């Protein structure tokens, strides 16, 4: 159990001692830190069901929420939990659920209804390895589920992917903000390592401002009755509903892309990775740099919307990209779509709860580097003998040094 004293003091804003405590660094478990960050972000109600590796989040909520006079319910299933969240969120409450992969599959139904009816909610998925019951080790094999659709229908939800416990705490407030601004469920994806590991974190919390909702169900007193629903049996009307949703998703894609760049200024290669995989990548990059491979990290923070334009821009100046995931290769499909063949995209991943080591990643990086060198040499040869044009993605002019001026150090689009 982490140090609770400091955390207990955290809600008392304005007081100098509390402020100092708030900024103190304490050792916290990821699941507990995320739970406390949600509480400090003003979460009114939490609904959950025990599952490894996120049970500590539920346990933290079970103790803290009643202490603060807020709502905690341990539901009969993940189906129960997500639908309790739907009901509470429909009244305008700030609501959160959490689970791990198999539980998220059960919550998919509710996610679809909430997306369709415009109900804000934050859902945390502490991913474990699948498919089926799989195992309880860390995994990123729910990328497809998170970004391409959990439930049925044409909808998306913003997906935030922290790479540290501190970042997870920060993004929790962002998740509630996005949920309420766009009237949508928002997912925060961690993995078994982020959930279970302990890291020193600053107790720095943010509470998003409360909005007045003109849609919340509060009882039709002195106003017309309100209905929160996703059904429309008339295709013409349902299409309009869908068009409005798509309009919202375009706006989110335009305004809410988040990513981080690291050591990409002079890079010839980039590793694209998120969450825990990005931390392994950092170690691998440090070792590769020692060996003279100019490589940096491109880390998507929003998995949807994916930072495709930023990655596309970057790929023009690279000799190759290595995508590293705790999966069989899911995000790599979005990387390839963004890169559109402008440079080779390789993949390295582990499954079943296994985590790639920095040396493994370094090996994959060396292989990519060697292959890129061979390709460039053979292209050069082809050009010299005049038997063909260079492949569009490997244009010589893109390879020179000093062309990375346009590359940004990450941020928000």
């Amino acid at each position, binding site marked *: 159990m982490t140090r609770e004293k400091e955390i207990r003091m955290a809600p008392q804003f304005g007081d100098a001692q509390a402020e100092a405590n708030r900024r103190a660094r304490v050792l916290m478990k990821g699941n507990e830190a995320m739970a406390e960050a949600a509480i400090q972000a003003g979460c*009114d*109600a939490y*609904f959950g069901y025990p599952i490894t590796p996120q049970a500590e989040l539920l346990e933290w909520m079970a103790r803290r929420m009643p202490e603060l006079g807020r*709502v905690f*319910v341990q*539901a*009969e*299933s993940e*189906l*129960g*939990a997500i*639908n*309790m*969240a*739907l*009901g*509470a*969120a*429909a*009244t305008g*409450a700030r*609501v959160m659920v959490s689970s791990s992969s198999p539980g998220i599959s059960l919550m998919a*139904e*509710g996610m679809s*209804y909430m997306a369709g*009816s415009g109900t804000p909610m934050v859902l945390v998925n502490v991913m474990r390895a699948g498919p089926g019951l799989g195992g309880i080790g860390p995994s990123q094999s729910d990328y497809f589920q998170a970004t391409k659709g959990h439930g049925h229908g044409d909808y998306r939800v913003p997906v935030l992917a922290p790479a540290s416990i501190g970042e997870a705490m920060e993004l929790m407030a962002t998740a509630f903000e996005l949920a309420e601004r766009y009237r949508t469920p928002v997912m925060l994806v961690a993995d078994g390592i982020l959930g279970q590991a302990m890291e020193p974190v600053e107790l720095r919390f943010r509470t998003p401002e409360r909005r007045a909702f003109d849609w919340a*169900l*509060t*009882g*039709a*007193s*002195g106003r017309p*009755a*309100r*209905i*929160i*629903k*996703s*059904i429309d049996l008339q295709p013409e009307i349902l299409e309009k509903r869908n068009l409005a949703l798509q309009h919202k998703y375009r706006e989110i894609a335009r305004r809410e892309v988040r990513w981080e760049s690291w050591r990409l200024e002079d890079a010839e290669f980039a590793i694209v990775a998120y969450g825990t995989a990005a931390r392994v990548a950092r170690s691998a990059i440090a070792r590769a740099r020692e060996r003279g491979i100019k490589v940096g990290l491109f880390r998507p923070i929003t998995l949807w919307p994916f930072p495709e334009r930023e990655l596309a821009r970057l790929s023009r100046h690279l000799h190759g990209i290595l995508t590293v995931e705790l999966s069989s290769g899911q995000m790599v499909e979005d990387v390839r779509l963004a890169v559109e063949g402008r440079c080779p995209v390789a993949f390295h991943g582990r499954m079943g709860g296994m985590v790639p080591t920095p040396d493994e990643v370094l090996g994959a990086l060396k292989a990519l580097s060697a292959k890129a060198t061979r390709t460039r040499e053979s292209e050069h040869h082809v050009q010299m003998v005049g038997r063909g044009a260079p492949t569009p993605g490997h244009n010589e002019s893109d390879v020179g040094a000093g062309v990375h001026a346009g590359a940004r150090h990450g941020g928000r689009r």
Partner: protein
Amino acid sequence: MTLHSPGPASSGASGARLIYHKPDVLLDRSTHYCPGCGHGVVHRLLAEVMTELGLPPHTIAVAPVGCAVFAYDYLNVDFVEAPHGRAPAVATGIRRVRPEAFVLTYQGDGDLAAIGTAEIVHAAARGERITAIFVNNGIYGMTGGQMAPTTLLGQRTTSSPNGRDAALMGFPIRITEMLAQLPGVTYAARGSVADVPAIGKLKAMIKRACQVQIDGGGFAIVEALSNCPVGWGMTPQQSLEHLKGPVVETYPLGVMVDRGTASAAGPASGGSTGPSSTPGQPEP
């Protein structure tokens, strides 16, 4: 539903006394229900009870999936749509963050007694302070008349074309009796829309189930046995006779439990006592 009045019952200029009028909370619309369907009667009773108890401005209702999916088109209160079977979970969420609201669910038998058994059982087990209206017509009406868990033995439906065979398809489920055993359930009763006396009794049950919530009691459920002339392949009149006969034989009418409002303390007075009459409630 022939007389409409903008206000409450009153003596007109002619001296005729208006004794039957449309509650304002019931919207003035034709329903989508099939001719002879009992849903309209249950809607009407609910509207009357809610008006009598002054509930509409405080109500947050949960609409089901099934024939009553458009309940919010007829009842003028705040509504949220629930996925199939999940209304009691949705209602739980509302209840917990809105202690002052009147929380109502309205579900059919496919919704409540098949896909939603976990949600209804656990909402009842937690003693959630919600009022559940359960309309049981023994069939999936909305999807074309398939067998439900409540379908009578021997009954022909589109998915039990040779009649429900217990060996293959199991037995009708008496969900209200099951729920009545749970200490969290303050009130559980079964009525019917078969005829005027039965409708009067059903109204008293619905009123009691609403009053329980107002008084701070636990979970309250009223099962309304209803007819489905189209799904049953009968005329409306035949379907009402069927309701009074074989349906009531399988699903006996009455109050299964009324634990007053102190149910949270545990099972108190069980048994088949009649609904305790509320002030101003005329016995039908």
